[in-house]
């Protein structure tokens, strides 16, 4: 039986930017699914098992943008091309949808470009969140960031700008697989490429400090992996580890209370 679609001519936007989550169809929100159902054309970056066929069942035209990734090719032109495809379709055939794994505005440059170009072309954009790998990291580690807060950086950007790290606040480092690499690569990374990261982190943490690589599951039946390393041997350990995922560095210590008057005021009410 061929699917019936619910596309609509008059939606309050020309382009929907949506996140599909990390684990596949299980994490597509109701809001996102209802949005995709009403779009004429969905452009998707997600090669999780069964995701594209599922979208094809709810949207009349689905184009995977994954083919734009080419090994050894720079990532920036790829992201521009992805954004251009979406904008071009929106001009003549709106509403269209840009759907990506994870959250569409968490480390997703094509979405940034779509938003910018749309503003210049009077195209209305609406964005709908998805479950990001930060969300799944919290679940995989069983942590709540309320205690000490959280800081996070893109791993190459951390090194490039020598960004200061506050070691009494847990730290998440993103895109380990792209460390120091502007091109799209799928080859394994040697310890040498991780050494600058290890050396830089040693300016803030002791060598025995734990650092955790979290690889969240991308299919419901898989288990997420959580690998615990020591900073002093991080580069060598990562060379043999999964290399995919985000790094989590726990705080060295909790920050002590400085404003005792406020503390007194707060505790007086308990």
């Amino acid at each position, binding site marked *: 039986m061929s699917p019936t679609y619910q596309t609509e001519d008059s939606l309050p936007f020309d382009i929907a930017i949506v996140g599909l989550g990390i684990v596949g169809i299980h994490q597509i929100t109701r809001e996102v699914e209802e949005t995709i159902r009403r779009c004429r054309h969905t452009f998707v970056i997600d090669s*999780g098992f069964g995701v594209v066929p599922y979208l094809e069942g709810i949207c009349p035209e689905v184009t995977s943008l994954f083919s734009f990734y080419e090994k050894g090719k720079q990532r920036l032109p790829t992201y521009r091309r992805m954004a*251009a495809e979406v904008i071009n379709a929106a001009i003549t055939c709106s509403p269209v949808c840009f759907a990506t794994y994870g959250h569409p505005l968490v480390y997703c440059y094509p979405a940034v470009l779509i938003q910018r170009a749309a503003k*210049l*072309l009077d195209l209305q954009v609406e964005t709908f969140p998805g479950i990001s790998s930060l969300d799944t990291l919290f679940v995989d580690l069983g942590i709540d960031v309320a205690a000490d807060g959280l800081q996070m950086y893109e791993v190459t950007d951390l090194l490039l700008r020598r960004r200061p790290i506050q070691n009494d606040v847990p730290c998440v480092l993103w*895109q380990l697989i792209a460390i120091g690499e502007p091109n799209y690569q799928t080859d394994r990374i040697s310890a040498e490429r991780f050494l600058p990261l290890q050396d830089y982190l040693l300016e803030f943490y002791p060598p025995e400090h734990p650092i955790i690589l979290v690889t969240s599951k991308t299919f419901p*039946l898989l288990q997420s992996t959580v690998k615990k390393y020591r900073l002093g041997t991080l580069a060598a350990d990562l060379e043999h580890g999964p290399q995919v995922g985000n790094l989590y560095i726990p705080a060295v210590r909790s920050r002590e209370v400085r404003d005792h008057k406020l503390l007194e005021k707060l505790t007086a009410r308990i």
Partner: protein
Amino acid sequence: MPGLNDFLSRIQTDHAFYLQFRKNPQEALTPYELSSEERAALMDSGSQLSARLGEVVFTLTGTKNFVSLGSADWQFDPAAALRRPEIQESIAQIRNVTTNADRLTPVLALIEQVG
């Protein structure tokens, strides 16, 4: 008889079936024609399944972000952008073409001009 791909698709799209498999995998697998290796991998949920899925499931290694190497302006100002002659030209070209194929080039040029 349905095979591995049918099973994996159903796990994604039929939540009740997914829960049934979690509770009683042997029973849930009964209608599927699977090799002993596939069956063992599905019971594993660790490296075996990961390796098996690796053949059909992409692990999310395709990053979507790039690092600004220069002083790229993340605070995009559309009004300022619209005053730039090259952007005005790209927009005019976009408005003047009639086919999708012809429009892609000026759209791409506009995208390059904004980020």
